[in-house]
């Protein structure tokens, strides 16, 4: 203890140097290190247990409350099913027609359906500044960095880091993430990032000033994205502003996914970045 007190300043400087060096070495790493994988083996099972225990208690607490609600919801849903079935048969017809026409035009429809893996969210970021979370599948289940993560409603985010038995997902409402997006109606392109000064929503930046984007437009991932397949739903435009520089516009976007109550996600286990590279190589030849 006495020795520590004598070397206080040296130790303080050492800690600072350690932090700076660690930050410089680990920023933007592609793979988690051995240390993190070891932590993963200890922490992930505990997190799984803790999350499922919390879910179980919540489930039991809501049991009686849910019965009334479920009854009304059930009758509503039955009505909806009838309507949807009618629509579906119409869709089926349109799909067939579409297939015929696309084959006539010789367009490739390789992005229309992709294989997915289901995963459960086991932990969220401990701080209040970020919107990352951890899912219970990793490279052992065939996942890789930069794979797209979806929920039933739309795009959730992408895998930032892939450990052996866990993956770190950065969501679309996190401001360290940015996606190339476009509006379906007008095909205007912009970058979608999270907005920290408006928590729980994102914004689309660098939209062309002449773009005819308006409130209520649907925003999806664009075909320029090197990570995401095109056409994944991100959200709806809430408001359009002109930037202070007067050269571009930005739009506030309400994401379709309810990030507060997200429990299960789907991961598209195909890496699209590779596809694009091989496409480019083919075009070059």
């Amino acid at each position: 203890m006495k020795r520590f007190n004598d070397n206080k300043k040296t130790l303080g400087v050492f800690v600072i140097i350690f932090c700076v060096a660690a930050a410089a070495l680990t920023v933007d790493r592609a793979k988690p290190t051995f240390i993190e994988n070891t932590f993963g083996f200890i922490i992930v099972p505990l997190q799984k247990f803790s999350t499922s225990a919390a879910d179980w208690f919540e489930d039991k607490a809501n049991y009686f409350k849910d019965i009334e609600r479920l009854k009304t919801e059930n009758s509503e849903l039955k009505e909806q099913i009838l309507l949807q079935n009618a629509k579906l048969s119409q869709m089926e017809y349109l799909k067939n027609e579409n297939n015929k026409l696309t084959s006539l035009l010789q367009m490739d429809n390789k992005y229309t359906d992709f294989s997915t893996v289901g995963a459960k969210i086991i932990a969220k970021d401990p701080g209040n500044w970020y919107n990352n979370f951890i899912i219970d599948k990793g490279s052992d289940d065939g996942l890789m960095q930069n794979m797209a993560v979806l929920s039933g409603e739309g795009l959730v985010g992408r895998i930032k880091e892939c450990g052996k038995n866990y993956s770190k997902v950065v969501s679309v409402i996190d401001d360290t993430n940015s996606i190339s997006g476009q509006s379906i109606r007008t095909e205007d392109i912009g970058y979608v990032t999270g907005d920290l000064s408006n928590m729980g929503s994102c914004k689309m930046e660098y939209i062309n000033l002449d773009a005819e984007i308006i409130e209520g437009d649907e925003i999806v991932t664009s075909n320029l994205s090197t990570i995401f397949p095109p056409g994944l739903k991100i959200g709806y435009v809430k408001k359009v502003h002109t930037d202070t520089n007067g050269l571009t516009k930005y739009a506030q976007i309400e994401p379709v996914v309810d990030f507060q109550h997200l429990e299960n996600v789907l991961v598209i286990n195909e890496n699209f970045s590779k596809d694009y590279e091989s496409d480019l190589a083919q075009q070059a030849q």
Partner: protein
Amino acid sequence: MRYFLYFISVILNIVLQSTLFEHITLAGIKPNLILVSIVSIACLRDETEGAVYGFFAGFLQDSFFSGYIGSYVFLYTFIGYFCGLLLKSFYRENFILPMGIAAAATFAVNFAYYAMNVLLRGYANAVYFIGRIILPETVYNALLMLIVYNLYLYINKYLEEEEKYKRKVF
């Protein structure tokens, strides 16, 4: 025994903070159990143990959740050290003072984190973030400190009683 319990508590804090504390958010803000534990231990023991505990807790949190290792290691180590320095002579059973210290530490850590990471990404409206994120967490942490500090106080009393007899050997 003491160090084994520290190890358990670091792991347990990280796990609880990332899973269970999601369910007790108020207006999207959750308290920080890890920071509160560091402040408790620094207050109850001394600056050395606070700093070492903070170092390992920060390392675990950074390596598992942050984009890079470093910022929480730095912040937690120094907050553990300074909280240990501040509270050299006071009655441990007095828990108002630790609550104040926890509030001050939360404010300091979060503001430093904002200055180190968020500000540089172009979010210059500090007042908004203080009102939206930092102050609510400060209040929340001070309340959490009331529970956590008393828990650590109780465990620490038991451990010190046990250690009293072992020390004679040296």
